[in-house]
């Protein structure tokens, strides 16, 4: 009898537990489209969403994308590759654009959103390199324009009496003057998946081609970086550094110059962003021909081919590509408008990045970063051999040989 009572009690407890664990199901609210967004953690996201819903007349369901980049890429790849139609619009970065643009998972937007009348206002190099597929279809709407800007420490420039860094010779003179006593002329973020940006930037500055490591200019760029390390003008320690480690060093005055994305909020937060402290500068011309190169990046809104709500999705994308949509993103998230005409109108002259961003757009060759479909694997492998080269485990020639092999494997 005692056993029976205990059994009945346990069975009842289990049933109640199961019942309690079952979520209450409410009737689904009717949405016009579902947006998979990376911006949901921003404190102004709700205001931005309200603005977009009001302007488009759409009722938008938002799904927060994971904040971890690997998890996010896995989830988005799964959604798109399986033809999951539960998400209509997705925000993707350059790595994902490179991976997905020729897969057929994304809808072409040439005739509906990225029409000829506005296409010319977006950075052309970026459009071509990043969001145009092999058949010429534009598959995304850039949500903003960011540059891998050249940053300098004005206090250090003043201290060594150098006014600006315009050429390779200026750059080397600055390295020579600044480096020593725990301070370096150049600083970077050379963790194996981050250093790709700087390798590609220097290759461009020397007039090379990231996908052709037989070119002398590529070798020159790597030799240049290697010499900076060998001469104590940039620290080998930075091969462990991501941007989280690099920026405190920049703020602490350990670096004379460096390349970094964004508008400098990391320096602003520390009270270091100003014309007499840390600020953006024009990218030096290493070619000697007046050619300056700079990379741009973005997160783009793309339309899932499997979406059942394409009409609503196109309404949304049209708004994001318009002045109103770009202004809303600038005001809510401080995202610099991707369209040059909109940036000119919307961004006030008091914005510390405006002048430099306008100059970058007009004076530099603006390109998307060189990426392949298996981007992360390629980036990581290139980073690995670069670190070996900088540590003198392999020579610069061996690096170029291996880099060419990697290009042939992945491209």
């Amino acid at each position, binding site marked *: 009898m005692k056993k029976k009572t205990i059994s009945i009690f346990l069975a009842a407890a289990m049933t109640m537990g199961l019942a309690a664990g079952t979520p209450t199901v409410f009737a689904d609210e009717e949405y016009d489209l579902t947006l998979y967004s990376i911006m949901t953690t921003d404190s102004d996201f709700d205001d931005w969403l309200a603005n977009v819903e009001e302007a488009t007349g759409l009722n938008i369901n938002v799904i927060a994308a994971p904040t971890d980049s690997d998890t996010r890429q896995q989830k988005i790849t799964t959604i798109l590759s399986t033809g999951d139609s539960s998400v209509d619009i997705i925000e993707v970065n350059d790595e994902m654009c490179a991976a997905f643009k020729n897969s057929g998972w994304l809808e072409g937007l040439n005739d509906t959103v990225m029409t000829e009348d506005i296409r010319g206002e977006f950075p052309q190099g970026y459009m071509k390199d990043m969001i145009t597929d092999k058949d010429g279809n534009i598959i995304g709407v850039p949500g903003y324009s960011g540059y891998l800007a050249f940053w300098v420490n004005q206090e250090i420039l003043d201290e060594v009496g150098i006014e600006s860094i315009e050429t390779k010779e200026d750059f080397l003179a600055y390295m020579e003057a600044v480096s020593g006593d725990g301070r370096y002329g150049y600083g970077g973020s050379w963790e194996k998946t981050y250093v790709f940006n700087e390798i590609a930037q220097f290759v461009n500055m020397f007039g090379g081609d990231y996908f052709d490591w037989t070119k002398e200019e590529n070798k020159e760029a790597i030799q240049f970086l290697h010499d900076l390390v060998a001469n104590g003008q940039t620290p080998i*320690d930075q091969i462990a550094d991501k941007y989280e480690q690099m920026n405190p060093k920049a703020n602490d005055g350990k670096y004379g110059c460096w390349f970094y994305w964004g508008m400098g909020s990391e320096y602003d937060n520390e009270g270091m962003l100003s014309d007499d402290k840390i600020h953006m500068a024009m990218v030096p011309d290493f070619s000697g021909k007046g050619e300056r190169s700079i990379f741009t990046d973005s997160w783009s809104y793309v339309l899932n081919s499997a979406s059942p709500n394409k009409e609503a999705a196109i309404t949304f994308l049209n708004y994001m590509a318009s002045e109103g949509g770009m202004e809303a993103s600038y005001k809510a998230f401080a995202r610099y408008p991707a369209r040059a005409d909109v940036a000119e109108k919307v961004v006030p002259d008091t914005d510390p990045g405006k002048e430099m961003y306008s100059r970058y757009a007009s004076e530099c060759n603006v390109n998307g970063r060189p990426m392949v479909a298996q981007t992360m*694997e390629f980036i990581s492998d290139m980073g690995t051999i670069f670190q070996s080269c900088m*540590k003198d485990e392999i020579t610069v020639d061996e690096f170029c040989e291996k880099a060419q092999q990697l290009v042939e494997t992945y491209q």
Partner: protein
Amino acid sequence: MAVSKKSMRWIPWLLILPVVLIRIFTTLYPILATIKNSFYDIRILAGVNEFVGLANYMKIFHDPKVITSITFTIIFVLVSMALHIILGVGLAMILNMKFKGRRFIRTIVLIPWAMPTVVIGMAAKWAFNNDYGLINDFIRWFVPAYQNSWLINTGSARGAVIAMDLWKDLPFFAILVLSGLQFISGDIYEAAKVDGANGIQCFFRITLPLIAKNVLTLCIPFTLWRLTSFDLVYAMTSGGPGEDTALIAYRITTEAFTNLNVGYAAALAIMLFLVMALISWINIRFMNKIGD
């Protein structure tokens, strides 16, 4: 109405059926799917999905990244486990001594174990930083000019990963050894002392033989946890410098979820599974031998 014993036999099966079904769906099916995938070249980003037989398994032995991972995994498991045993038994002996505040010390030594590994990994990345890290700060108390970036050279980066692994899990190992020590009767030590045995003799002749089986039993899960360790390296070094601290579990995760080479990752996972099964079998055989 009495129910016969024979007809009652199916009731336990019926009761565990939901769990069995869940297990089949969540464990057996993924294992079988992984085995199947290991015979296919599945590269999601390249849009490839074709049967390749044992090619993925053959590739493992020619892939320098995997060979580096296997090398470090072997070093990591052997060094970490050896130090777990030596330092863990030592710490357990200390915690078994009678001293004031013993209970408090026993509690606080477990704090690192209770912390999430990812948090420890992220903190360790800063701790081993040359400019801002507390490790070098501490060393500079004694050697003011000391400069060393721990995470940029193969040897020091691997050492740092092993050190963090020990810092986190050693106390837990020690507490479990301590539970074995507490089963040893004090009478045995007293008898040994009467017979003239010193402390070292007591340790090697009494303590060690009596806790050996306990320690070896602990070695099975602790070894398997080391073999499947991924999060520490993920947060602390991202496998760097180069691929030098990429443990095999980290390599599998990278292939599966970053590079999306599902077939190759499945083959690596199956190989790891076989190695784990072999190690467990050897360990159990060894344990039985000691028991005999």
